[in-house]
């Protein structure tokens, strides 16, 4: 994080959503999903992959959300404790809010019904889904993940116990289509959502892509005391250009992707 100096030492301790909570996934399923997570976002010289950043804990937290009251679906509050309040002169103060995101909000009746259906499916929901007769039953995410992993293991050409962690990443493409899409999206969510949800461990997902992280309650601008002038802060410009060097400019491989996409979309390459 670019504002590391503003982060208190305890900011990344996340007891409420750590991997010590309820588990749905078996050790075998966790290993397969870890391999899939690293297939989506692999470790390399730039930093850790999705597995090390907590993707499987994130997924398990969602699949076991209803084992908490309130269900751990929607985090509460406005702020984490990663950024301070602004001082009277607009600069970062030494005062940090409590991490409100460690709490979760109660779900309304309709929200609860939706998430129960999404996670447990029609078979696990009293009365099933509202349109099962016409559209077929909803298959819950818990079953989709479990069955998908089972099917992938069965289809994978080598026994997974005899497969190393890196070769096992190829099992991602043996997931059935729906489970493949589910896992891919969940891994992306785990990488870049608030660490309180269980992924993005220690903000590592943000750090890898050079993102500042959540900015509240400090934000990026302030009204200069005694004036009506709105200003930004040194080091995190809002109004003017970035003052630091580009951490990672686009190389030719990435530029080639845009060239190809623009040609398909009917756009223009200007230089």
């Amino acid at each position, binding site marked *: 994080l670019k504002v590391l100096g503003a982060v208190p030492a305890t900011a990344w301790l996340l007891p409420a959503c750590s991997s010590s909570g309820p588990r749905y996934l078996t050790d075998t399923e966790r290993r397969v999903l870890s391999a899939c997570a690293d297939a989506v976002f692999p470790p390399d010289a730039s930093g850790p992959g999705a597995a090390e950043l907590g993707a499987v804990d994130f997924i398990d937290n969602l699949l076991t959300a209803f084992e908490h009251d309130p269900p751990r679906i929607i985090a509460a509050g406005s702020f984490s404790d990663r950024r301070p309040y602004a001082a009277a002169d607009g600069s970062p103060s030494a005062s940090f809010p409590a991490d409100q995101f460690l709490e979760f909000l109660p779900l309304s009746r309709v929200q609860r019904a939706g998430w129960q259906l999404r996670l447990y499916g029609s078979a696990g929901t009293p009365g099933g889904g509202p349109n099962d007769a016409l559209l077929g039953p909803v298959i819950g995410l818990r079953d989709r993940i479990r069955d998908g992993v089972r099917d992938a293991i069965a289809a994978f050409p080598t026994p997974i116990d005899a497969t190393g962690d890196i070769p096992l990443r190829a099992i991602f493409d043996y997931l059935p289509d729906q489970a493949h899409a589910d896992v891919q999206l969940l891994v992306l969510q785990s990488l870049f959502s608030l660490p309180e*949800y269980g992924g993005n461990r220690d903000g590592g997902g943000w750090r890898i892509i050079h993102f500042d992280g959540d900015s509240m309650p400090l934000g990026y601008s302030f009204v200069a005391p005694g004036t009506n002038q709105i200003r930004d802060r040194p080091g995190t410009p809002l109004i003017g250009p970035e003052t630091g060097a580009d951490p990672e400019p*686009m190389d030719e491989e*990435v530029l080639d992707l845009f060239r190809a996409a623009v040609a398909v979309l009917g756009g223009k390459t200007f230089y």
Partner: protein
Amino acid sequence: LSAKPIILGNASLDRFDALVIGSGASGGAVAAMLTRNGQKVLVLEAGPNYFPGIDLPDAATLPGAPAGQPLPQFGNDELRLLHRYQIQPDPLTEPRTFRHSVADGDRLRVGDFANFAKTVGGGATHADLKTPRFIPDDFRLATLFGADATKDGASFVDWPVQYDEIEPFYLHAERLMGVQGADGVDPFAGKRSGPYPTPPGAAMYVSSKMAAGVSQLGYTLFACPTAINSLPYDGRPACNDCGFCQGTPCAINAKGTPGVTTLRKALLTGNCQLRPETRAVRLLVDGAGTSITGVEAILPDGSRAMFAADRYVLAANPIEDVRLLYLSGSGGAALGNSSGLVGRNLMLHRGVNVLGVFEDQLHGHRGRGSDHAFTDFRQPANRAVPVGGIVVVQTVPYLIQQAQTYLDQFGALGVKGALLKKMLRQARPRDRLINLSMYGEDAPQPTNTVDLDPAIRDIDGIPVARLTYREHAYEVSAQQFYVPKMIDILGAAGARFAAPIAPGDPPGSGHLMGTLRFGADPATSVCRPDGRFHDIGNLYGTGASLFPTSSGFNPTLTITMLASYVAASIVSPGSPERALPG
């Protein structure tokens, strides 16, 4: 699971002058206007309340709340807001269906179409609240277009109220919402009778980048009016440009959403009662079918109750308003539909987006995400060129959404795994992408409709809304004409690449308009010029549902303005301006 009803505001009220269905831009404005004029108002809101303390004069006792303000249960949290349905209806429990025309059969797809936030404050809670006024010509397009007003099935009509007549209500709405802006910077704006409440906020770096490109092609970029406090205003703090503004609610109440402006003002009068998680499912009518006698609603625990008032105001949105009218009719007919126009002329702003790729560090995650615009493409009186809409400069700040987009859009080019990681590190969307978004005006078409799906139900077993929508040559030709110009603007601003993004089907602008158009003639409109239904003496439409045409501007200010106008017409029939604050 709570079994008791949730009652906010004055819980002792048991008789109401008006019952308002919906608490968003329309419902909040109606409640504010009626209650400040002494009327007792009940507001039913289908969604939850995420503003604890919304009804407390000084909510400072709530830990973490901004001084004296409700505590917004919203943060810099993309997951809950854009992926976990905190405020959006969940398509598993509250789906909609979609088709292009009756030729598609009952439906093409079931899912999440033109859905709108269902929460206290409605869609104005998570909108980025750009709040330009419509221009005077927008209110008289049929006059300007002549024979073209009905070309190829279009149904352009003039509004029954004109800009000069309702301008004081625009100013009122701007003051209610705390709109930031500057007089005289938009060369095409209508005249104003007062200044903006606050000046423009900090201009993002992307805006200065784009200013050069826009001016090089002869257009005028200006700070877009936006209902976000640039300075402390009305007891709410100034925006600190946290970056979570497009499609996400505000964590500090700097955004002028109904929960901290209109609705809160209504609740603090003592004349208002708000019931969240209380969904109106049926209007009851008298024997003659000319008067509403009550509303049946589903309470937070799933049980049902009846509510009554002297008047009833539909303020959900143009889709849910119509759904309720169909649910309340008999024999498959909608209430109040002697014109045959209930649910017709649905408009969604089928706009166009053009993305520019830059090699700079644009840091588009710092700021409001969208703070400048130009309106040179919106010239309805110029019949020599297609009629476009306002073009806003937007950044692409969200991480999960964009990672998924990179996979979807570049997957065919081999982007996955290590290459995806590299793209997210190097082609950081917040740093590299600028989106020019034109809110092209939809031609109103009677064949674009809302009605009930014959078979698909929501979680309570109630028929869901079905959208039938197909684009018109009017908006398609405008897009084809202006997209090359938008590409060149991005190039002039320094983009290395620029390309258009295909509109969604149906469009995903989040702008819902039409379906209860208002006018003087009961044969050609659903509601009267004062918002009252022609057919039903104590039922009113408001806001975007009344729009006969959709203009080419963000609609929220006009929704708030028109809702205030309708409510003022209830308070002071024939002289609504008398109901405005002195």
